[in-house]
């Protein structure tokens, strides 16, 4: 039982990271119907930004309190990736808006390749280990919960609340939902569609940056290829939950995290990704629009 709960905690932590990335996929998909393949690399970029900020802090001020350091890392990583995604959307995706469906997908794949290789070229191809930032572990009823896990789950919960509020209760969120439903009509009603889409990209990137920082803190290492696997899993999570649905993305992320940790705990760790992808395939075969996605009505 304790072992099981322990795995639940681990899964929840992992799932929070996936969920944060998945929101970026799902929002962009919701608003312009595009699979932003480069989103995983934005996450990786966020992790790298946090790493570099951490090294700067270390070098300049020596012993900064870790809470403050983490806060600064998250904020700068968010700004940094937000700027990146803003520029990327403007240069690579906006010219293709409204054209051929596969064109933006290919551009996004190209962007993903370019981004990871950009980091490889500028930061080097080797693993970047950092000393453990947070190392306290608490023992609660026989289950060991580390402070990093608590931080990850808490930060995710706080961000999701803020985020949920923005989407549901602010004019910006209203503009986003309107653009999602009918871009042309939204434009006619005076919504600056371009700006709304840009902001959506920036918001998605900011969440991915938080996930990147958390990932760096949790695993203590990052490398330029780290965008791919978490990216694909987060995308899987978004699809599993029902792409376009925000709660779906979080739910999907948590599910993938749990599947992974439970599978590794009870079966074999080698096939954990096979399990994840198989469950995705099975869910989609029986519920083709994901768990919380609106079923697509075939209009005749």
């Amino acid at each position, binding site marked *: 039982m304790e072992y099981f709960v322990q795995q639940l905690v681990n899964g929840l932590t992992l799932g929070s990271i996936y969920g944060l990335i998945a929101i970026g996929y799902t929002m962009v998909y919701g608003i312009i119907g595009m*699979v932003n*393949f480069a989103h995983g690399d934005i996450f990786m*970029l966020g992790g*790298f*930004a946090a*790493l*570099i*900020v951490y*090294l*700067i802090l270390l070098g300049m001020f020596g012993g900064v309190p870790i809470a403050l350091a983490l806060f600064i890392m998250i904020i*700068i990583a968010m700004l*940094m990736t937000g*700027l*990146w995604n803003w*520029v990327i959307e403007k240069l*690579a995706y906006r010219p*293709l808006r409204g*054209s*051929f*469906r*596969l*064109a*933006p*997908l290919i*551009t996004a*794949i*190209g*962007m*993903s*390749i*370019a*981004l990871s*290789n*950009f*980091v*490889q070229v*500028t*930061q*080097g191809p080797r693993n*970047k*280990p*950092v000393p453990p930032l947070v190392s306290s572990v608490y023992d609660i009823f026989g289950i060991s919960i580390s402070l990093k896990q608590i931080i990850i789950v808490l930060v995710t919960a706080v961000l999701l609340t803020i985020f949920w509020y923005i989407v549901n209760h602010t004019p910006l969120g209203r503009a986003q939902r309107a653009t999602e439903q009918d871009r042309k009509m939204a434009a006619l009603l005076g919504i600056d569609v371009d700006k709304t889409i840009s902001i959506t990209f920036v918001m998605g990137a900011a969440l991915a940056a938080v996930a990147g920082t958390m990932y760096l803190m949790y695993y203590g290492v990052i490398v330029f290829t780290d965008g*791919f696997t978490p990216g*694909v899993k987060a995308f899987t999570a978004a*699809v599993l939950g029902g*792409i376009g649905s925000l709660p779906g993305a979080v739910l999907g992320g948590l599910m993938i995290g749990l599947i992974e940790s439970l599978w590794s705990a009870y079966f074999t760790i*080698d*096939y954990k*990704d*096979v399990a994840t*992808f*198989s469950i995705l*395939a099975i869910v*989609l*075969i029986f519920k*083709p*629009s994901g768990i919380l996605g609106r079923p*697509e009505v*075939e209009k*005749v």
Partner: protein
Amino acid sequence: MANISQTNVVVSNNLMARALREAFYAGLVALGLFVLFVGLKTDQNILNELVLVQRWGLLAIFVAIAMVGRFLTVAYIRPWFEARKAAKAAAPTVEREAGFVARNFSLLALIALVIYPPVMVALFGFQGSLKWVDNFGIQILIYVMLAWGLNIVVGLAGLLDLGYVAFYAVGAYSYALLSSYLGLSFWLLLPIAGVLAAAWGTILGFPVLRLKGDYLAIVTLAFGEIIRLVLINWTEVTKGTFGISGIAKASVFGIWSFDVSAANNFAKVFGLPMSSAYYKIFLFYLALALCMLAAFVTIRLRRMPIGRAWEALREDEIACRSLGINTVTTKLTAFATGAMFGGIAGSFFAVRQGFVSPESFVFLESAIILAIVVLGGMGSLVGIAVAATVMIGGTELLREMDFLKQIFGPEFTPELYRMLIFGLAMIVVMVWKPRGFVGSREPTAFLRERKSVSGSFTKEGHG
């Protein structure tokens, strides 16, 4: 007159002011983008701790490039484009007769391919030609074959498949395993690999084909990853990440062998000096023949009811069903046919490398193949072949750019930039030509004259 020139001056002054302003903003943005990633580099010191290396000079170069680029774009390039567009709109469109090269492009390309190995041998000698025939020729032909296979699924049937590399892997491992365990010959295994891949295509396709659009895309991606992960983890059979090596070479229909020790070794039989170039040249022609076969089958299939049904499926699935077409079997045949091409390409890949490992079948390969199909223009064999040549050959050329070391210093490794440039090229080509190199479609039947269909009418499918 004076008035007009004055307004011109004002306009150009305004333009310059704007260009300068925009250049300034671009500089700011570039500074923001690159300050952490270019300005600083994380490096390990002797204690294996990460330290930062400062590179402000490089950062300044990046920012300067962004500023100058933006300035030139706003001040000169954009007005030039607009002027050209206006001139084009003003001038009546003159139908230009296609030149000799354009009209006979396929034939000329084929001739060029046939004489390519002897020309390379003549230029660089047997040993020197190896690189050109193998790295460029054979590699590009493998990608052409793969892309033509994927073209059936994506370009014709309009089904987005992000896990195509799975079938490539099935083909490669079929050959590798069956030839090492059972000792079957290449010529027997080539069709078997195709059939096995097609069977896998059907098995994987069956449950997922009622999914649409991006759901289909992610499930195919998942299947691609599953197959790769199984290849990595099922070590008893596949030897995991070590891969399978020492795969038997192909022979010339069993008559001449390329094994050095064999009695009927090609070089021995003809009394030639020993060289691995003969084998590569043989493989080149073999790849070429397989490509021609694939092209022939594709062209033929497009004129068959099944091919037309594929294209109709891409255009409108509901209309297809209203006309009595079983869309499930139609999709499955597209999937299986595409998979078969992938499988054949895979077994060819295994025989060429003599070694297969799961590393060759990562998602990036699927992405590259898909990119070639879309960049080439979906459905167009010629466009796809051109795209494969440009993208694969182009990035391969970067390996050869040793002279760049003399410009950027000895530490400069052009190879490192290969995939970066590949990714950027994908973006640039897509933004420049969203429909790919060849956007138009050749009709499969005609009453009076064959007119190509402009890309603006064809759809890309939702499946």
